[in-house]
């Protein structure tokens, strides 16, 4: 029920994200979602891609520092209050969210969540019949 997210360490340097996207494009790996967390000198790029194993392999071969992180991806209705209802459930069970990113398109919104306790988070989301994605 979890999805493997790719986390890549990047120096803050013009063109560095492009280096990575070029490699993925060349290898025919599609990106479904990504987000960038930045500090003044480095950033962590978090991506969900079509072929995780292959992406790790090619990026490592190109000297990128890459690691895999378990995240939970859900679909919810693209309407006011929908996400709040879900997050309410998580917080009342003491699930802390380290980071999350989302985008909405049409009637649905896709949300990527990195909770402190992945298994418990999935369990809670299942209990409330949340639409957990098994893949993109």
């Amino acid at each position, binding site marked *: 029920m979890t999805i493997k997210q790719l986390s890549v*360490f990047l*120096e803050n340097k013009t063109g560095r994200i492009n280096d990575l996207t070029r490699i993925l494009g060349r290898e025919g790996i599609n990106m479904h979602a990504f987000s960038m967390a930045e500090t003044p000198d480095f950033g962590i790029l978090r991506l969900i891609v079509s072929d995780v194993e292959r992406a790790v392999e090619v990026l490592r071969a190109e000297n*990128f520092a*890459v690691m895999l992180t378990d995240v939970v991806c859900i679909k919810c209705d693209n309407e006011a209050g929908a996400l709040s209802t879900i997050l309410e459930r998580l917080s009342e069970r003491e699930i802390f969210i380290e980071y999350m990113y989302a985008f909405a398109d049409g009637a649905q919104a896709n949300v990527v969540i990195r909770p402190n306790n992945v298994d418990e988070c999935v369990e809670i989301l299942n209990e409330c019949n949340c639409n957990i994605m098994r893949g993109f």
Partner: protein
Amino acid sequence: MIWNPNKECMSRDEMHALQSKRLQKLVTYVYHNVPFYRNKMQEMDIAPEDIRSIDDIVKLPFTTKQDLRDNYPYGLQAAPPSEIVRVHASSGTTGNPTIVGYTRKDLAVWSEVMARCLTAYGVTRDDTFSVSYGYGLFTGGLGAHYGVENLGATVIPTSTGNTEKHIRLIRDLNISGIACTPSYALYLAESLEKMGLDRDDISLRIGAFGAEPWTENMRREIEERLGLKAYNLYGLSEIMGPGVSYECSEQNGSHISEDHFYPEIINPETLEQLPYGEQGELVFTTLTKEGMPLLRYRTKDLCTLMTGECACGRTAVRMGRIVGRSDDMLIIRGINVFPSQVESVILEMQEFEPQYMLVVDRVNNLDTLQVQVEVRRDFFSDDIGRMLNMKKRLADRLKSVLSISADVRLMEPGSIERSQGKGKHVIDNRILK
């Protein structure tokens, strides 16, 4: 004005005789009081009696900073502990700082040579003089301080920090002279301008600058912005501290107090003594020191020595500007920094690859140090907090080892340029115009 014409204007023959006598006495003294020197001399098959004149100095062994470190803390001290009245320390590479003990007579000599410097700059009893070198283990503050007192001027021990208060004192107390690093002088000028003041609002007329490399352009800029005349003040803690050599009004090299510090220039590769006028590594022998006398101490500073009587009347050998180093030491904000210190810190933290680069720059007249390190793949984390923590731990550790703060930059593995053979670990962007 000349503080001690008997010594500063001594004829060359008299100086030669005095140095010869003092060297003989020194060699006998260290032979009997410092096992390190006795052993070295015995290995080289030299006895104190073999030293008959200052020209025999080439027979004597050299001393390096590494020797001081290896004999930490008091191994090279010649005087008994009861005779030591003060100790200074300079930052050493990895762990061992350099410890220098002074006897009462050493401090008297130090105040004497500092008074010579100040008098050469034109400081008199009527001046109010601010010492803005750091006070403490560093020799700059206290060394200059007692020189000003010995001369009889009024010393204001401002030390470093709190520049606004300093400027207020310069104005309110009519401070006419200042000793500090040249970069601090520029910082002072900038702070003055930020406060809406300029050179006409202060009455500084003399500046004694040293403890870090500087150039003619910096001299002109300092003189222009602070409205004073800027003089070079050279020294190093192993030999004494500030006051080893000084410029006079001619500003044609710095006069060395040769009756106390005997200078030589050597080829740093062959260690052969070079004639005056040739560029090489500056070496000093402390002719009169009691606490920690040193034979032929290799300063690693590259310069030339000049002879000939100066128009000011002084006869002592003069040293030209320091043009570089024969090792990889950097001077950042007046503090000695060796790349090997950074290396040792990085090697002891498993999160980092053994690759690093020091980037030194000067921003708003203050030196900055950036340390770039590569994070090992296995230690990369998706958690920003953890990464920032890793960065902070390295910064804290560097600060405690280097005594100055460094801006740590975490880099991707493999991103720091690998060089063949001896690694290049320093990019110095400071433009010493």
